[in-house]
């Protein structure tokens, strides 16, 4: 097992290196530059813009810039943002808690909805409940989050005036009031993300349970006279959820990606909104770092999914 993980990690290294090279070259070839805003400002002489370009090393050849970036990265230096002139790792660390809170809560919400609904629907396939659940699941994952986000803002913030649509990390209140305010502003983004995830999870849970519930050992358990609840919880769900667990792990990077748009809509100061503002400002070091973090997340969660799968299902062995 230890050997297996080590081997996987070693294999991951070249792929991360490849990803970083492609990202870097793509960003270097992409049009735009971080000092575009200076261009139309008549108070900043062109020489200053030129000096800044030289100082930040933008005019060097791509290959040299990549090697420089790589060397610094290996020493733990992520570079600094052109826009705010502070270190990128600091910038990202400031954003991580918020993103984790929003993404984490939305995942919990998604599972809290998907598990009971999926299992119940599978126990009574093609019943009215199953059909309603299916319909909602289809609607849920057909509607993109940027649409549902705006829809919720329109209904709850503008028409009803119940919820704020600007997310603030620092709420000027203490105690219960603080929690209440925080809860109020988090409802919309978390439900947008959570329900979108819940829709696809529900479909997945349902089919996984449906696969297991017809197997002979379940019939055996029933014929032993065990009550239905025990059969479902102890025998069916336990086995059916193995693929679901891996699915959740594999979905995690995608959820971070989905949060980019949602963060922008609700002005949540997470990694996603950092990425968007960095792209708009052509702040290459930040774009590079954030996309690279996303790439790492994909690699890590893939590994995690494989490990968890084998741990849950002893039939799988690591070689």
């Amino acid at each position, binding site marked *: 097992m230890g050997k297996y993980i080590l081997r996987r990690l070693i294999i991951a290294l070249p792929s991360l290196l490849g990803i970083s090279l492609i990202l870097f070259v793509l960003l270097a070839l992409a049009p735009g530059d971080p000092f575009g*805003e200076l*261009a139309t400002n008549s*108070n900043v002489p*062109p020489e200053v813009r030129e000096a*800044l370009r030289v100082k930040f090393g933008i005019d060097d050849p791509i290959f040299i810039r990549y090697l420089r970036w790589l060397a610094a990265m290996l020493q733990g230096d992520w570079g600094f943002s052109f826009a*705010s*002139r502070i270190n990128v790792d600091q910038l990202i660390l*400031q954003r991580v808690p918020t993103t984790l809170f929003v993404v984490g809560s939305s995942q919990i919400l998604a599972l809290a909805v998907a598990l009971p609904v999926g299992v119940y629907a599978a126990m009574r396939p093609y019943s009215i409940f199953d059909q309603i659940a299916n319909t909602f699941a289809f609607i849920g994952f057909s509607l993109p989050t940027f649409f549902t986000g705006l829809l919720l803002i329109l209904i709850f913030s503008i028409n009803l005036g119940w919820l704020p649509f*600007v997310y603030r990390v620092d709420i000027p209140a203490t105690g219960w009031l603080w929690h209440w305010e925080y809860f109020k502003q988090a409802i919309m983004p978390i439900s947008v993300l959570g329900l979108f995830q819940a829709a696809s999870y529900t479909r997945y849970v349902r089919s996984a349970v449906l696969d297991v519930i017809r197997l002979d050992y379940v019939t055996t358990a029933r014929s032993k006279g065990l009550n239905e609840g025990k059969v479902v919880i102890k025998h069916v769900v336990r086995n059916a959820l193995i693929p679901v667990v891996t699915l959740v792990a594999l979905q995690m990077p995608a959820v971070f990606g989905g949060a980019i748009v949602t963060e922008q809509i609700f002005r949540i100061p997470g990694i996603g909104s950092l990425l968007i503002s960095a792209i708009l400002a052509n702040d290459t070091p930040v774009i590079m770092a954030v996309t690279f973090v996303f790439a790492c997340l994909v690699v890590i969660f893939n590994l995690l999914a494989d490990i968890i799968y084998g741990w849950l299902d002893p039939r799988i062995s690591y070689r």
Partner: protein
Amino acid sequence: MQERELRDLIADVKTGRMSRRSFVQQMIAVGLTAPMAGMMLAQSGVAMAQTAIPYKPTKAGGGGLLKILYWQAVTLLNPHFAVGTKDQDGARVFYEPLAGWDQEGNLVPVLAAEIPSKENNGLTEDGLSVVWKLKKGVKWHDGMPFTADDVVFNWEYARNPETAAVSIASYKDAKVDKIDDFTVRVTFSKPTPFWADAFVGTYGMIIPKHLFADYIGGKSRDAPANLKPVGTGPYVFVDFKPGDIVRGKLNPNYHMPNRPYFDTIEIKGGGDAVSAARAVLQTGEYDYAWNMQVEDEILTKLEGAGKGKVSIVETGNIEFIMLNSTDPAAEVDGERASVKTKHPLFSDPAVRQAINLLIDRASIEKFIYGRTASATANFLNAPAKVRSTNTKFEFNIEKANAILEAAGWKKGGDGIRAKDGKPLRFVYQTSINAPRQKTQAIIKQACQKAGIDVELKSVVASVFFSSDAANPDTYTHFYCDAQMYNTTMTQPDPGFFMNQYLSWRAANKENKWQGRNVSRWQNKEYDEIYKQAEQELDAVKRAAMFIKLNDLVVTDNYIQPLLRRPKVSAVAGNLTVPLSGWDNDLWQIANWYRET
């Protein structure tokens, strides 16, 4: 308008026959800035008006939280690094300049005890130096006294190229000496008529020497105070998350009595302009939103909710079309649009004149921009309501047709005019932005009616405005026949603004297309007058020169001004916000208050 007429007008102001305000408006009409008009009056013995900024609260504090929303978040808080207005505004909460510019062109002292003038021996006859007297008793947020050393330090800091400050232009050609603890002298290398640049307004904010002294030059990025500002401003720093939020709280030792009114302040960033307008005007979640680049139709609708109002102040920003004076199709010495070539169509004055007549400025204003822009014929801005000899614009298709006909451009079978086998067909580019594409369409339609075929091109803004020397689609390459964009005038003095038509500033391969003369327009007379204006110390003579420069640019029709773009913000209904088009939005943040 000649020098004599200007003198007559000033005499009228002096004797009280004409109000200061209407004089300033007249000057704006002929293409000057309000600050320049103010300087003219000051030099002619009409004192700068003591600007009365409305402020009712009788004690500091008690105003609660002031919530400001910027749809582009503040990314840094060092005023010398502040590239965009968002960053300058963020810094302005904590830092202050010696003086700021109000809407009427008056200098308003902030950290200065008084505005330098000949009467108080602040200005000299030769125009080579300015003496600033500093306000006494001002303290930095950490309790240290603010002195002349701090002011001198800012000059040393910003002028050092290693520091990579964007404010370098205001400081590099000056020399700053300390006379005593509360007096500094700024000395210029040559007579400088516009002396109120260093330490004034946007690039004039002063940072404390005791916190930045060790971080001058190459180490500038490492200063801890870059992220934790310690200034003299009305609010003390509390918290800053780059790209998200800036927070401050009332400065109990602020140097102006009874200010500020609010106990805490926050500037939240991110999102988009429309939803920011919504948060102020419709839901009232926020008190102030900056830079409302939103269609006027939407703004009017949102205002209907009664929570707030849209505030519009004049600036020197202008949306204009430039016609290429060189040939973008021909390649000479490895570059296109070389000044050695002439544009095959636009070199005929009749064509340029016809195009000028085919721009329906009134409709563009009315149907596209609404209140958020006003049509103009001047390159240096002009409100349409004040009539001036050279500020006429006309939309007349028949006349355009007649001019082209007379110049020998005959309509062919396809309805397109041609002369000597050259069809009247050109490409017109701009950045991608809905109102700009609509404007393009209006002009294309009118041109069609006059037998001119216009091909429209739009380039993503991040490419169009980039300084990438390798990308031919940037506006400075101008490998196109005509292009349109908005040029900002952050500097109250037109000196720097008007250098974009100097022959030797033409953008080319050699200067990596960084030259500011993008149109490549060449005019000897313009160059000469500009050189004179640079040295001219008499504010009135200088103003007359700038009017002449404006007229030269505009009447040659290579440059076709379209609209003046004012500063548009959304303000909560009960909030009093003194704004100025010649300074930052938050230039008077100390005087913001809420009616209760």
